């Protein structure tokens, strides 16, 4: 059964460093998402991406964040200058349309 994959599973970085989180969505899906979940809190929407552009973003997704689909399979989230409060689980999700979104296993980002 097709699934969303994410790498790395755990990323440790120093405050101020740039990180890139990678995702491979399900192959015939058209919409791609990033969500985050701070420990003990709810899953929060960051950004949605369709047809090679951002279709929606939340207040969390400020200028420090960017997304890219560099080729036909990968979808990346870049954080330019990490802060302590960026420590969280980051989930990628994909869907064919407005129906159910399928989530990856997540990347745990720890900012020291």
């Amino acid at each position, binding site marked *: 059964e097709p699934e969303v994959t994410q790498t790395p599973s755990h990323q440790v970085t120093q405050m101020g460093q740039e990180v890139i989180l990678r995702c491979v969505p399900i192959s015939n899906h058209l919409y791609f*998402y990033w969500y985050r979940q701070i420990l003990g809190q709810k*899953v929060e929407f960051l950004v*949605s991406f369709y047809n090679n552009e951002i279709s*929606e973003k939340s207040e969390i997704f400020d200028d420090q964040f960017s997304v890219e689909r560099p080729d036909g399979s990968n979808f990346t989230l870049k954080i330019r200058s990490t802060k302590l409060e960026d420590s969280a689980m980051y989930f990628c999700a994909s869907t064919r349309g*407005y*129906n159910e*979104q399928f*989530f990856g296993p997540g990347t*745990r980002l720890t900012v020291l």
Partner: protein
Amino acid sequence: EDQVTQSPEALRLQEGESSSLNCSYTVSGLRGLFWYRQDPGKGPEFLFTLYSAGEEKEKERLKATLTKKESFLHITAPKPEDSATYLCAVQENSNSGYALNFGKGTSLLVTP
């Protein structure tokens, strides 16, 4: 103010003891309501989508129902392997990117 409120926050059941989880929502136009299961340290796993009041979906010991203001996830004769956090999420008609707005979840523990 949260648009999606789940109750209870935590629930402990004996194996075989049926119960219901609640998700109440306040959105102007609901496109869909989604239920996910999340195991510790993992990504949300899709369970059900409900689109209109009166709709019901079933899968094994789980049944989801929807009214105009809330949804219930009924768990019949639960087993220890049903222990997880159950997440409810809503998708509004106004979301151009089909973002999901999650509740904080109900943590379910089923004991033998």
